[in-house]
Every structure is written in structure tokens, then in C-alpha cells.
């Protein structure tokens, strides 16, 4: 079992949990967290390199590094792991954000030990989710990732934290209620497994069987899509996002917006569309409308917010909406773009939240009307903010651009009038994005200093610099060398693997 490299994505965090539990000082906690997440990052980088090598050598299996261990034999529940380029990209994203999040929580107070314990428990859920290809295991990890949010926001958050934490948890659990039903439904219509069992939770097997009756797909697809869509902040199930993000502590916002929301998009294509191609084709239009609304609606809402985190949360609604939107276009290019958008948005929004946290930590306000001219006071953070903003509004050379362009080009491939219309509507979001990003940049960073007291504030410390610089480098890396990532992702979206693309 431990010869499979993927298992270490769960094992390392578990060891980290133990290490942090045994830590006696803040320094030890930090070193465990940082060392562990560096290890995870290194592991995912190594796996990507190795994966590309295997693919280049002609390995055409849909998933590599497969491992299957029977768990609940009676229900044919297995602990199966396996990754393709998409999961690898997501693993890399998660480990980078965990790393930068650890740096961003360098001085977390109070209860640092508990904070990191929960944070890493959350990351176990995330990593586990991305490596699993067994629906049950996947779902289990999915829920593991959800619940630490409650405590992380509730204890270390700010503002109306108890309300927000509760709302977030309940809404996400509401989504997973639909999801659970859908998963059980899929299970009972999955068709036989290779080992002779009547039903299976194995994603690849279910997709290969393609045995879910069409009438059931009509029922199960919306369930699964809405279930994951809630986490993907799909309109109208997105309202947990602004409140939740606004109240969460920095690292949690980072991890949540950066990675956890990606679980939604990932699940949508990996479970809903992958397993139920028929319904995906038939019902895509409903969700296309919803996600199309998400895209512009989030952007318009962000235009009038005054709280930095709310702005970013609504912007996340818009950008994550674009992810789901692209997935629903059901063609290779758009879906590749969706994954790139996930990566891009993950990094970019983590950067945003990190910066907002750092600014908030200094000024103790997130209201843009009470701040101004920060460029003069904390140039490093301000420049980073501008870069994040530029990435968000899709400046070439940064990650947002390549992702959005891939999505738009891909979406336009779809000749359906509705899709076309919504593609053009979604395109409009790039203008609105520019509006709200520049509004913030103009008010917050530029202009005269609003508050005399702010003049005393200091610029970023070394750990904050590390955290933000890492993210910026990643954002720029995707933006400058998109083809590497596109090729990593595209393999999965071939008609041989994704029935819906036929």
C-alpha cells in the first residue's frame, strides 16, 4: 500500500497532524507545517514530471498510479487512488496553497496549534478528494474537508463569524446531501464491477459501464451537479461565499477559495458529467444559464461592495461560475480552460486573500472607503495587490488570461445559439471585472492617504513576502507557459475517456 506515491498525500498530512499535536512551541508548529507542505509540493511536482514521462512513454490509461484496496467489501467500496493530469494539477495547487497559507498564518493567534491541526485536517480532505477515484472515498474526503471550516472560521474569524461559519457549513452540507443521494443512486445503477460485484463505486468502472439508465440520469445528474455546484458557488447557491470568506481568517480564505471551491468544479466534471454523459448533454442548458448568470451577476455585485473580502468573494463567484460554465460547454477546449481557470483562480484568489489578510492585519479595516494611498505606505503589498488584480482581470502573462481565453475560444466552438449567447455574456464579465478591480486598486492603493495613522504602518515581513511571492511566481508561470498546463490537462478530455465529448 505504501509503495503507491499517492498515499503519501494523505500520509504526510496525517504525520503533520501528529507532529503538530506533539509540538511544544510556535516555532515547532510552523516548522512542521512548512516542512510538510514543502514535502507535499515537492511530491506533486515530482509526480507531474514522472506523469509526463509516463505519458510520453505511451501509457494511455485514463488514470495512472492506480492503487485499489478493498475497504468495505460488502458494498464493494474500495480505497482506490489514481490521478491524471487534472488531479495532479489540483494536487500541486493545493500543496502550494497549503504552503503559502502556512506562511500567511505565521503569527496566528490564539490557539495556533489547534488552528494548524484543523487546517491540515482540511487539507487531508482536499488531497484525499483529488487522489480518490472511488466515489465513496471521494465523498468522504469531500466532507472531511468541509467541517473544519466551521471551527476555523468560528474561532479564528472576524466579524459575524459565528453566523457566517454556520451558514457556510450548513449550505455546503446541504449540497452534500444532494450529492450523497446522487452517489447512492449512481452506485445502484452503476453496473457490475470487474471483480464480480453487482455494483461499484469505481469512477472509471462506472464510466466504462455507462449503465446508468437515461431516466435515472435525468434525476441524478442535477443532484450531483447542484451538490458540487454549491461548493463551486453556483448561482443561486453562492451566498455562503461572501459571508464565509469575509469572516474567515487569512489562510482559511486562501485554502477555501483557492482549493475548496475547486472541489466543486472538479466534482462537477469528474462525477456529474463524466458518469452521466447523456444527462449532461440534455440538461447542460439549465446549468449553463445558472452559471452564466453567476459569471455576470458575481461581477456586477462585486462592483458596489466596499469590503475587500466581499469584493473578492463576489469575484470568486464570477470566476468560479466561469469554471462551471466552461465545463458545461462539453468540449475539450472549454473544459481544458475550465481546469486552467481553476488553477488560475485558485492561485490568484489565494494571493488576493493573503494580501487582504495582511492589509487587514495592519489597518484593521477592510472597508475601502477608509483606506487609500497604501501604495505609498506598503509598496510591496500594494504592488502584489496590483499584480493579483491584473491577474484577475485577465492580463496576458498572468494566469487569468490564458484560462479565460481558452474558455472563451472553447465555448465559442459550441454552435448552439444559447451557448453562443451566454459565451458572449460571459465575455462581458472581463470588462466588469476590470471595473471592480480598478475601482479597488484606485481607492485602496492609489490616491492620497486617507488615514494619518496608516502612515506608521510597515510593509510586508519576510514570511509574508515568501507567501505572496510564491503565489505570484506560480500565477506568472501559468500565464507565461500555459501550454505545459494545457497539455497536462487536455489528455483527460479526449473522447476516448470522456464519453460526453464524442
Amino acid at each position, binding site marked *: 500500500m505504501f509503495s503507491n506515491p499517492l498515499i503519501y498525500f494523505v500520509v504526510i498530512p496525517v504525520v503533520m497532524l501528529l507532529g503538530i499535536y506533539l509540538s511544544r512551541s510556535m516555532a515547532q508548529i510552523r516548522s512542521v507545517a512548512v516542512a510538510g507542505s514543502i514535502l507535499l509540493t515537492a511530491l506533486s511536482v515530482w509526480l507531474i514530471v514522472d506523469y509526463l514521462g509516463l505519458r510520453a512513454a505511451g501509457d494511455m490509461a485514463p488514470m495512472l498510479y492506480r492503487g485499489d484496496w478493498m*475497504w*468495505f*467489501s*460488502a*458494498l464493494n*467500496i474500495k480505497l482506490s487512488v489514481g490521478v491524471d493530469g487534472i488531479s495532479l494539477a489540483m494536487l500541486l495547487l493545493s500543496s502550494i496553497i497549503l504552503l503559502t497559507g502556512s506562511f500567511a498564518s505565521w503569527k496566528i493567534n490564539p490557539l495556533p496549534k489547534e488552528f494548524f491541526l484543523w487546517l491540515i485536517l482540511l487539507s487531508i480532505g482536499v488531497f484525499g478528494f483529488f487522489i480518490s477515484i472511488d466515489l*465513496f472515498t471521494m*465523498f*468522504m*474526503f469531500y*466532507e*472531511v474537508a468541509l*467541517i473544519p471550516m*466551521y*471551527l476555523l472560521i*468560528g*474561532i479564528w474569524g472576524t466579524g459575524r*463569524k*459565528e453566523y457566517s*461559519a*454556520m451558514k457556510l*457549513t*450548513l449550505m455546503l*452540507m*446541504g449540497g452534500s*446531501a*444532494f450529492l*450523497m*443521494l446522487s452517489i*447512492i*443512486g449512481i*452506485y*445502484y445503477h452503476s453496473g457490475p464491477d470487474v471483480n464480480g460485484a453487482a455494483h461499484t463505486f469505481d469512477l472509471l468502472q462506472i464510466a466504462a459501464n455507462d449503465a446508468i439508465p437515461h431516466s435515472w440520469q435525468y*434525476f441524478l445528474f442535477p443532484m450531483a451537479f447542484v451538490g458540487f455546484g454549491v461548493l463551486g458557488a453556483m448561482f443561486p447557491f453562492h451566498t455562503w461565499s461572501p459571508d464565509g470568506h469575509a469572516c474567515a481568517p487569512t489562510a482559511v480564505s486562501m485554502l477555501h477559495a483557492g482549493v475548496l471551491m475547486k472541489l466543486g468544479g472538479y466534482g462537477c466534471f469528474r462525477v456529474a458529467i463524466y458518469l452521466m454523459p447523456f444527462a449532461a448533454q440534455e440538461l447542460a442548458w439549465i446549468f449553463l444559464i445558472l452559471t452564466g448568470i453567476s459569471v455576470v451577476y458575481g461581477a456586477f455585485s462585486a462592483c458596489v461592495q466596499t469590503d475587500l473580502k466581499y469584493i473578492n468573494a463576489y469575484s470568486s463567484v464570477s470566476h468560479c461560475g466561469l469554471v462551471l460554465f466552461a465545463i458545461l460547454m462539453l468540449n475539450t477546449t472549454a473544459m481544458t480552460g475550465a481546469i486552467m481557470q481553476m488553477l488560475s483562480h485558485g492561485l490568484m484568489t489565494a494571493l488576493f486573500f493573503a494580501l487582504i489578510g495582511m492589509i487587514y492585519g495592519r489597518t484593521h479595516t477592510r472597508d475601502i472607503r477608509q483606506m487609500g494611498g497604501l501604495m505609498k505606505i506598503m509598496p510591496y503589498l500594494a504592488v502584489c495587490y496590483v499584480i493579483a488584480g491584473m491577474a484577475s482581470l485577465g492580463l496576458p502573462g498572468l494566469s487569468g488570461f490564458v484560462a479565460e481565453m481558452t474558455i472563451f475560444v472553447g465555448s465559442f466552438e459550441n454552435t448552439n445559439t444559447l451557448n453562443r449567447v451566454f459565451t458572449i455574456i460571459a465575455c462581458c464579465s472581463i470588462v466588469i471585472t476590470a471595473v471592480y478591480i480598478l475601482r479597488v486598486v484606485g481607492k485602496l492603493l492609489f490616491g492620497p492617504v486617507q488615514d494619518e495613522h496608516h502612515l506608521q504602518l510597515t510593509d510586508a515581513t519576510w514570511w509574508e513576502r515568501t507567501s505572496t511571492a510564491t503565489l505570484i511566481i506560480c500565477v506568472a508561470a501559468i500565464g507565461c507557459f500555459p501550454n505545459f498546463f494545457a497539455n497536462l490537462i487536455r489528455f483527460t478530455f479526449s473522447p476516448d475517456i470522456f464519453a460526453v465529448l464524442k
Partner: protein
Amino acid sequence: MDYSQFLAMKQEIALLGVFLLVFLYDLFMPKNSQRGLSGFTIAIFAIFTVSCFCPVFISGHEVAFGGMYVTNPVMLTIKNILNVGMLIVLIQASRWANSEMQVIRRGEFYSLMLVTLFGMYLMISARHFLLFVIGLECASLPLAAMVAFEKNHYESHEAAIKYILTAVFSSAIFMLGLSFVYGLAGSLYFDSVYFALTGADATDPMLIVALAFVMAGVGFKLSLVPFHLWTADVYQGAPTSVTSYLSVISKGSAAFAFMVILTQVFGCVYSQVWEWMLYALIILTITVGNLFALRQHNMKRFLAFSSISQAGYIMLGIIGCNAMGMASLMFYILVYIFSNLAAFGVIQAIENQTGKVDMTDYRGLYKSNPHLSVVMMLAMFSLAGIPPFAGFFSKFFIFTGALSGTESTALYVLVLIALINTIISLFYYLLVVKAMFLSSDEPVIAPFRSACSERVGMWITVAGILALGLVSCFYNQILILCQTWGLPSLA
């Protein structure tokens, strides 16, 4: 008469032996060594519990007394599950039982408890309604005495009055239903009734009313809505040890018995009649239980309503009407015992120390008593069905069990309603977590070290919460047993 058939009842007989030992110890030991009673009881009950897993108890399908009594490995297992729960309850109760107030009545407490367990054994193993009724009464009447145990507390008396009156009323209803069944089927043997009803007209109003009354009678023990109203009052008024006993052991046995009755006696009229009745009961139970639990402040009362809604989830296992449903039901009971007892363990520890049982008293508990609050949190997460704790698995399996082998959309809708209810339940479980962890107030309860027995109880329950789900052998084993031995007569 062939006395060898008593051998089939070896578990019951062993339990009676335990009962007698405890009874005699209480009767004949000098007063100065009375303090050893609880330790003695725990010890011999632990031996009994462990030995029940030994091969000597394991047998195939055995029948005694002309088919009135049946045992098989599935029943052995459910009894073992109850034993484990009982053991934890005993351990947790020992501090309370050793307190000055209870010293003189300790013997009765243990004896009565063992007798109720004996009654539950009979309920589980009965294949004749006479034996079943005896078991039922044996399981519920001594409980009334136990509820009334806190002689100096008015609440205890009121709870006991409510319990005994409702219990008798419900057994009257139950027996009225049985009389109708007898009138229709001419026998009280489960299988005879089953065969008699096989050809019967399912729309016979007499049958339907009989069924409703039988369901009401067992539903009382399970506290299904609308037969649940006694629950909260009794749970609140009873001594906490008794409450925890009521909420898990008594409920667990009743759930199993309910499944046996519905599937093995009325199985033939399944789809026509009781399926819909059960749907209604489940939806009502889960929803009403949840809604009541939303606004409770007394922890015991809160857990009472939570246990009502949990009973609704347990009922989902019956719907599948097959081995998987049964296994899920048993597994659910097992996990529920551990989770709920963990919660009650914490409540008891705090109540014994400070006398506080209100949720507002739990504010800031993490600051003063981190371990207790972590145990409580795990219990709440497990009850709410959060992975990786056992509750998640039991919930997932119970839903899987409910939907196994069905294409019925109505059933999916039912499960969806149950799932949506989990959100409400999550809300109120999180309220407890919120009080303990999120509140920035100064803790109400000062730091203290709980008694050794309480800690042992908590360790066991926490181990259960962590291990029962993640370690797959428990469920796998139960399911295999159920597939081999459970529900033979059903399609």
C-alpha cells in the same frame, strides 16, 4: 419436555447468572464491602460481554420451545452490541452509583438494569408474541423504577409517572393490536401469522388498524413521532445514567425488534400497507425530532430530541427490507451507541462534578476542559454524520441500505428528505460545538479532572467513534452475518 432446548438460550441464561450474582452479592455481602458492588458488577458483566464473543456462544440457527424462541448469529450479534453498550453505561454510571445518595439503592439499580437487558434479549429472540410481550414489559417496567431513582428530585418522579402511564397505555394499545392479529391469523407465532396473512386481503381495515396499533406499541419504545412525547420529559427527569441507557440500549433493541416484526410477521403486506405508514413515521420522526431539538438548552432534553430524530434514521434500515438494510440498521445502532454514550459520558461527568446540564453552561468549555469538549465534539460530529467519524459511515450505509434494490422514486424522495434533515441536525449539533469552542466568554465550568471510570468510558467511546467506521471489518462482518442468517423468509 426436552430440557436440552434451554441450551439454545445460553446467552440469556448466562445473563441471568450475572443478574443472580449481582443480586446475591447485594443481598449477602456485609454493608462495609458494598462499595465494591459497582466494580464487581462491571467486572462480571465485562467477563460476560467478552465471553459472548467466544465460540461457545456462537451457534447456528437454534430454536427452542416449539419455535417461540429463536437464536442465530445475527441475534447474537445484536445482543453483543447491546452488551457492549450496557458495559459502557455501567462504567459511566459507576461514579453516580457510588455517590452517597445512591449507596443504599445501588444493588437495585444494577439488578433492574440487568433485568431490562434480559427483557430485551427476549424481545430480540422472540418468535411468538407472548414471549415478545413478556420481553417488552420486562424491558420497560423496571425502567420506570429506574427513572424514579433520584428519590429527592421531583423531576425524577414526574418523569417516572409519565413514563409508566404512557408505557402501560402503549402496551395496552399494542396488545389490542395483537388481539386483532390473533383474531385475523389465529396464532401468535410469527411465522404462522406470516403464512396466515400471506393470502390475506391487504386492504382489510382490521389488519391495517392492527398493524397501526402494533407499530404504535413498538414505536413507543423507539419514540417515533407521534408516539414520542414522553421521551423528552423522561430523559430530562431521569438520572443521566438511566437516560443514556434509555436512549441507546432500549432504543437499539426496540429498533431491531421492530424490524423483525415488520419484516417477519407483516412482511407479506409490506409494499401494500406498512411501507407508506413507515414513510410517514420516518418523515415525521426525523423532522419533528429535529425541529424540537433546535431550541433546546437542557443537554439531556436536547439529546432526547436528537435521539428521536436518530430513531427516524434507524428506521430507514427497515425500508430496504433485506439483509443490507438489517446490517445497516445494526451498524447504525452500534455507532449510535458509541456516539450517544460519548455525549452522555461528558454530560454525566460535568453533571456529577458541577450539577450543570444547560448548554449555556458549556460555553467556553474548551478553555477549561479541553479533553471533555473534544470528546463532546467528536460525539456531536459522529451523531451529525461527519467523516471520518463513525457516524458518517453509519449514515451512509443506512441510506444505501434503504435504497438497495429499489427503483422507487418515492423512496429516493424520502431519503432526500432525510438527508435535508441532516442539515438541521447538523445545525443543532454545531450549536453545542459552538458553545464549547466558539464562545469567547469566560468558561462557566471550572477545570476539573473527571473520575477514572468516566475517563475509561470516554476513551472506549472515542475509540469506537474513531475506529468503527474507518475499520471496515465491523460493517463487513455484520453484513455477512445478515446475508447468511438474517431475514430468511423474505423475498
